[in-house]
């Protein structure tokens, strides 16, 4: 795939600085100079797509290099919209990171319109002391227009390799409409899916906090439905309705992986 973007972040004069920033259609990077508080050393990179979304046939491939001790946040200006697909072409994003510092990827969610086809792949190559926060999330579609899980294809891959080639975390989600069961049946009224990965020594306290919170929240939500399973379920009874929020948190090697579902789009993580 032809490269459409490259960003290099290095320490210059003791501060995390973008020393190289190249992007071409359909991708554009914006690196505002004043985002976080000035006492905190970090660089914020915003990624935009021309026209506010990804159209059929677009392909994006970019490479990121985060230098020693640097802190970088990579985010989007608004949710990534994937428009409908004509002739079954795929829109794709490919990002590769080399990191031995702290990189936080905090995009807005991906929203696929009806019949859209979208795939993205993010490959991270890290070292033992790298710190990564990855948020990968997507919604059911244009909710207000009644499009719920109406897209044709969504595929997202997040692969993390340690010291170049040792697989640490390999995850691919594939949702295809042409399958034995329609996507909305697999989603059971939930409208948002999010996955968060917290990796690295600098994030230990957040990892513990997330684990505790998820355990507490879910323990309150999970219980046997009342009056037995074989009895008639009264769908309006609180005891038989699904929790509005489902989450689970797993420790994985040196990191924590947290995935959750929510039944409304206006959720705040």
């Amino acid at each position, binding site marked *: 795939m032809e490269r459409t973007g490259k960003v290099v972040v290095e320490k210059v004069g003791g501060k995390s600085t973008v020393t190289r920033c190249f992007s071409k259609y359909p991708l554009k990077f914006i690196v505002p100079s004043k985002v976080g508080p000035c006492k905190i050393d970090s660089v914020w990179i915003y990624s935009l797509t021309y026209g506010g979304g990804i159209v059929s046939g677009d392909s994006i491939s970019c490479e990121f290099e985060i230098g020693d001790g640097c802190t970088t946040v990579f985010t989007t200006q608004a949710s990534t919209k994937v428009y409908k697909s004509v002739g079954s072409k795929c829109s794709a994003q490919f990002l590769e990171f080399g990191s031995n510092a702290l990189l936080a990827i905090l995009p807005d969610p991906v929203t696929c319109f009806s019949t859209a086809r979208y795939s993205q792949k993010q490959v991270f190559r890290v070292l033992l002391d790298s710190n990564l926060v990855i948020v990968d999330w997507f919604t059911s579609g244009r909710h207000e227009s009644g499009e719920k899980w109406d897209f044709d294809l969504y595929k997202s891959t997040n692969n993390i390799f340690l010291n170049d080639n040792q697989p640490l975390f390999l995850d691919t989600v594939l949702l295809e409409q042409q399958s034995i*069961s329609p996507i909305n049946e697999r989603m059971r009224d939930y409208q948002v899916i999010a996955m968060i990965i917290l990796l690295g020594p600098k994030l230990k306290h957040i990892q513990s906090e997330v684990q505790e919170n998820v355990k507490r929240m879910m323990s309150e939500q999970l219980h046997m439905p009342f009056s037995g399973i074989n009895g008639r379920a009264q769908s309006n009874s609180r005891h038989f309705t699904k929790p509005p929020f489902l989450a689970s948190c797993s420790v994985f090697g040196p990191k924590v*992986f947290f995935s959750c579902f929510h039944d409304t789009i206006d959720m705040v993580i």
Partner: protein
Amino acid sequence: MESKKEIDGAKEGTASMTSSLQWSQWQLIDSILPTGGFAHSFGIEAAIQARVILNPEDFQTYVIHVLENTGSLLLPYVCSAAMCPDLDNWRKLDRMLDATLTNEVSRKASVSQGSALMRVAAAVFTEIPSLKTMREMSLGSDMAAFHHAPVFGIVCGLLGMDSETSQRAYMFITLRDAFSAATRLNLVGPLGAAVLQHQVSIAAETMLKRWMNREVEDACQTAPLLDTLQGCHGYLFSRLFSS
């Protein structure tokens, strides 16, 4: 004259090999084989307590999603292990699957079932000494996690099962264990479970055809809700199953 005897002899040899393979195959997929499959519910117990499964119809839908996810995520490992059941390939598959089973609950379930299966297979199928040696060379230290799907594939491959049958067998034991869990959780009665299992097997074959013979690099999850539900198993206050 002589050549006909040779052909007949060869045919008989093949027939008896096929018959003895069938005995081993059936023993491998029989639920009485002590691999601890009965301790795992594929997230069904968590799904009941999350009120995602409220009745047998919900369960039927759920089990189809479990089968599809098994197909998309795990069949590539069974396939590769069955086609190439040597130590190097097995260790590579085991490492990759360890990085892929990101959900702690399903990862532990896979390791516990895989370890048990390797131990049982090495003890039972003594005509295949490589099972014992592969196991012994990988015990202790961090040589292998003994994940279930690759171990199952290795055993099938070394027994002489073809790749398609091995993958079908893996789908079968998933179906078998899911229904066993549902029966013990009182979702269905034993007869109802048997009837439903036969109906679902038609869908299972369709899913097998869709997902078989793929590369491990293409392994993916198709039912993320299941993954989260299974991951919730550890938060259940009272539970029957380990996962």
